[in-house]
C-alpha cells in the first residue's frame, strides 16, 4: 500500500461514469486489490451504488477483491503454450496449492492467474513468477520451484 485512496480518487476530478474502470484499475495497481473501502469510496465519489460497482468489477477478469499472494504466478495458456503442456502446469499448481486461479492461499503466500499468450510462444510453456519470465516450464519442476519460493518467503 502506498498512496492514500483519496489521493488517487482526487485525480479524477470530473467524476464521470467513464472514469470508473480507470479509477478501479489505478486503485488496484496501487493497492494490489479492490478493498471494500475502495469500492465504497469510489461509489460515493462517482454517485454509483456499490452493487453496481461490484457487478461491473466481477464481469471483468482483472479485478480482484482479495490481496494477491506474496508469490504471484501467471501461467500462459495460449494455444502454443497449451500445445506444449500448459494444462499440466495449471493442474499441478492447482494440486500443489489447493486453490483456483484468481484465489490466494490462506497463508497469503501464493496466488496464480491464467493468461492467454504472453508473446513468447516459441519458448512455451511460459510462466511468470512475480513478473519474472520462466520458459519451457515442465510440470515436474513446479513442486521444487514452489518449495524454493516458500523458503524465500519464510526467510524474508
Amino acid at each position, binding site marked *: 500500500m502506498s498512496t492514500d485512496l483519496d489521493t488517487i480518487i482526487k485525480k479524477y476530478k470530473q467524476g464521470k461514469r467513464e472514469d470508473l474502470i480507470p479509477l478501479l484499475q489505478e486503485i488496484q495497481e496501487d493497492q494490489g486489490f479492490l478493498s471494500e473501502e475502495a469500492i465504497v469510496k469510489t461509489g460515493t465519489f462517482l454517485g454509483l451504488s456499490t452493487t453496481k460497482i461490484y457487478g461491473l468489477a466481477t464481469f471483468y477478469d482483472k479485478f480482484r477483491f482479495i490481496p494477491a499472494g506474496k508469490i504471484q504466478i501467471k501461467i500462459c495458456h495460449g494455444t502454443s503454450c497449451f500445445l506444449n503442456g500448459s494444462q499440466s502446469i495449471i493442474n499441478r499448481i492447482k494440486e500443489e496449492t489447493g486453490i483456483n486461479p484468481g484465489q490466494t492461499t490462506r497463508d497469503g503466500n501464493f496466488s496464480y492467474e491464467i493468461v*492467454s499468450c504472453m508473446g513468447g510462444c516459441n519458448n512455451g510453456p511460459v510462466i511468470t513468477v512475480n513478473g519474472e519470465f520462466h520458459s519451457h516450464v515442465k510440470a515436474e519442476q513446479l513442486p521444487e520451484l514452489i518449495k524454493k519460493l516458500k523458503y524465500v518467503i519464510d526467510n524474508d
Partner: protein
Amino acid sequence: MEDLKSFLIEKVLLFESDTLSSDTEKVLGQVRREKPAQPVVYLSSGTSSLIAGSARTYSAIENYISENALEAKLISVGCTGPANFEPLVCVHIPGKNKLFFRNITEEKVEPLLNGVFHNDINEDDLAGQTGTKGFELWPGIPFMDEHPFFSNQKRVVLGNCGCYDPESIEEYIARGGYRSYVKAIRHYTYDEVCDIIEKSGLRGRSGGGYLTGLKWKHALNTNANARYLICNAKESDPGAFTDRTILESDPHRLLEGIAIGAYAIGASNAIIFIRSGSDHARNRLQRAIDSAREFGLFGHDIFSSGYNLDIVIKKEPGAFVCGEETALINTLEGKRGMPQLKPPYPTTAGLFGKPTVINNVETLMNVPLIMQNGPEWFRSLGTENSPGTKVFAVAGKGRMSGVVEVEMGTSIRTILEDIADGIREGKDFKAIQLGGASGSFITSEHLDLTIDFDELRENGIGMGAGGFVIIDENTCMVDLVRYYMEFIRNESCGKCIPCREGTGRMLEILESVIRKPLNEESGTTLERFKGVMQLETIASVMKDTSLCGLGQTAPNPFMSALKNFRDEFEEHIFDRKCRANICRGLRSFSIDVEKCTGCTACASKCPVNAIYGTRLQPFFIVEDKCIGCGICFDICKFSAITVK
C-alpha cells in the same frame, strides 16, 4: 537534442517539397546510423526476446563495452520476426555489412563480441549478413534476406520493426515518418484522405475485411459535434501476438496511422484500447505519445493547421468479448463490456453516442504507407480484392516461428513449408489453425489456398486476425477443440442464451467424449455419440441467433475438426483411444516392476490414492481408481511408470 528537434520539424516535417535537400538527407542518414563511425550493436527487445533472456543479454553487452573501453553504441530495437533466433543481436562494424547472430544469451556475449572484433566469428551463432551497397561483404556468410524465412515474406507493415529504436521519435522521422500526417492535416481535406484510403482498397485486418475508407466515410458523413477514433489493440485471442509486437517495435507508425485516421473522420480524440498485461507495449506507446506531443504533432492547432488531436491509452479490464466493437464502447463508457445489437453501427452512434471508427492495429499501420506511396502502390500488392499484405503470428509446431508478413495471394503452403520450414522434430503435419479461438482448421487438402479474404471465405475459412498455429501429429484434435471451447465458454458474456448455453453444452459433450465411461455396459457410449450428433443443430442455432461474433463463430473449431478429423472423435468414443496419448481420462498408467525401486514418491503424490505397495518393493496402480492425471509419470525418477 533540441537542435535536432527543431531541425527535424523545420527541415523535414514542415518542408514543402517531397524531395529533401541533400544536406538534410545527410543528417537523416546520421540519425539512421547508416554509416556509423563506431561499431553499433543492436539487440531485439520485444516481449518474445525478453522471454528468451534479452534483458540479461543487454547488460552483458553493456558491461562488455565498458570493460573493454570500446567506442561502441548499444541500441535496443524492436522485433525482427524469427522468434527462435531470440535474443537476436546485430553488429554493425563501420564499413562492413551488418551481421546477425541468433540466440545470444548473456553467457554468449563475451565470446561473440571477442570474435567479431577480432575477425574470428563463431559460425554456429550466425544468422546471416545484410547486403548493403557500398559496404564490405563478409566472405562466405549467407545473406539474411535470402533466408527462406525472409525471402518468402513481404515486409511492408513490419518494414520498420527491428530496424530502429522504438523509443526514438527522431529516428522514426528520419525514416520518413510523420510526414504524411503533417501533409494531410495541412494540405488535404477530410474527404481527400478518406478517398485515398478507399481507393487503396484497404480492408480491416482484424478478420472481417470491411473496407476501411468506407467505414471512415460513414463516420465523417454523420452529423455530430464530436467524433472518435479507437484503435483496437485488445488482441486477446489465445496465441496471438502480432499487434503487440507492432506496438513494441514500431509505436510511432501506429500513432501516425491513428492520427491520419482521426483527421480523416474529423475526430479530435483518439483512444488506444490496449490489452491488459501488455505492459511493455503500453510503456513504449506512452513514451511515443509523449515525445510526439513534445514535437508538436499532437495537441492544439497542430502546426497551425487548425486541427486538434489528443491520443490517450485505455487499459482493457479483462474480458475477451470487450474486443468486439460495441462491447468495447460499453467498456470505455464505464459499463459492462457486453455487445449490443447493430445497427446502429458505431460509425453512426458509437462512444458517448457520437460517430466512432474502430480499427485494428494492423489496419492502421497500413495507413501512413498508403498516404506516402499512394493508393496505386497499395493496389499493386496482393490480389484484386484483397490488396496489401497480411501479418501472422506463426506459432505451434513449425521449425521457425514468429511474426511473419506475406503478400496477400501467398499460399498457405508457402507459409508452412518455406517460412516456417515445415514441422519440428521430423513429425507429420496435421493441421493449421487460422484465426484464434473461433477459427477453423486447414488440413493438407487446403494448403494451396491463398491468403485472400474472398478465397478463404469461399472455402468456409475466416481470415482471422493473425493467429497461424501449426499443429503436428502429436496433438489430439479432440482435446484441442475442447481447449478452445472451454476458452470461449469462459469468455461468453452470457447476454444471449444460444451463446451462453450452447458453448456450455458443446463443452459438456466434448468433455464426455474424452472421459472414460464409469461402466462399460451402461450405454454411455451411445449417449456420447448422440451428444455429438446434436452438435450440428446447436452450432447452427448459435450461428443464426447469437448477438455477436463470439457466439456466432464459437462452433467453428469444433465443427471444422469434426468434419476433418471425424475418425479421431470416433476413436475416442468407441475405442476409448486417444492416439496422441493426451486425453487424461483415456490414458492408463501402470508400473514396470523391473524398474520400480519402491521409493514411494508416486504413491505419496497420487491425488486419488490409486497407488499401493510396500516400501522398497515394486508398487502397483489400481486401474479403476486412476484418473490419468500423470503426476506419477512426471514424478518417477526411474521411468518406471508407463502410459498406454
